[in-house]
């Protein structure tokens, strides 16, 4: 829908992201803009999601704390916030639907500490209940 308009804060910021299999894959914590080389106008190039992006946005002590806890659990040196290219977005409505799998996203670049260290070690973690 060319020419369609929306208000970024109202319609996309803080919206749930859902992957191609309908699995929840984070929240739109921020948007990243690039500059169009011809017109010079900024355009949305990617969605930022995860504690680094949220931490920066929250600012203050809580934001720093959030980013540092995340960094410690994931043992990486400041990789910058996780990005999801706008190119893999399928639809923006009640959810932001994307065309790829959660595992293939930048937000899954670090191993999942909660899953690997704790939850997967409890019997039944792999069993579907329904």
């Amino acid at each position, binding site marked *: *829908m*060319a*020419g*369609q*308009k*929306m*208000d*970024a*804060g*109202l319609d996309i*910021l803080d919206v749930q992201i859902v992957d191609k299999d309908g699995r929840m894959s984070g929240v739109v914590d*921020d*948007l*990243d*803009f690039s500059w*169009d080389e011809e017109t010079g*106008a*900024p*355009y*949305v*190039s990617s969605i*930022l999601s995860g504690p680094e992006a949220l931490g*920066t*946005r929250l600012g203050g002590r809580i934001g720093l704390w959030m980013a540092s806890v995340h960094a410690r659990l994931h043992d990486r040196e400041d990789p910058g916030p996780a990005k999801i*290219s*706008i*190119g*893999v*977005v*399928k639809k923006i409505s009640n959810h932001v639907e994307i*065309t790829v799998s959660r595992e293939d996203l930048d937000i899954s670049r670090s191993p999942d500490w909660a899953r690997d260290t704790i939850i997967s070690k409890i019997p039944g973690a792999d069993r579907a209940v329904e």
Partner: protein
Amino acid sequence: MRLSDLLHSEVYDQDGVSVGHVHDVRLVRDGPVIGSFGATFSIDGLIVGKGSFGSRLGFDRAAMKGPWVLKALFNRLHASSRFVPWDFVAAVEERKILISRAAKELHEPKALDLNGREEA
């Protein structure tokens, strides 16, 4: 540049007079084609106003009718909102945006309908 760099920044007109804070950023789908998404959104302009409470509740949507108490309250709060077309933006600095026009040249933002079109 990130969306959060723009939101809540204070906007000053050509005479250095504050117009208010950025409540929201209006996007329009006319940007470059990226991946399967197609044409991406580029920035249409800034919605700027005094105070900031309730800018993201959706009461500025044309189709949002009620409850009337809240609708009336937020209409009043947002009556002073102004739309700053992106062409007017001269510089984006730390928490501060400078525009190249005078505050009085700005108009109220137009409400969007459910299909993302501005109301006449």
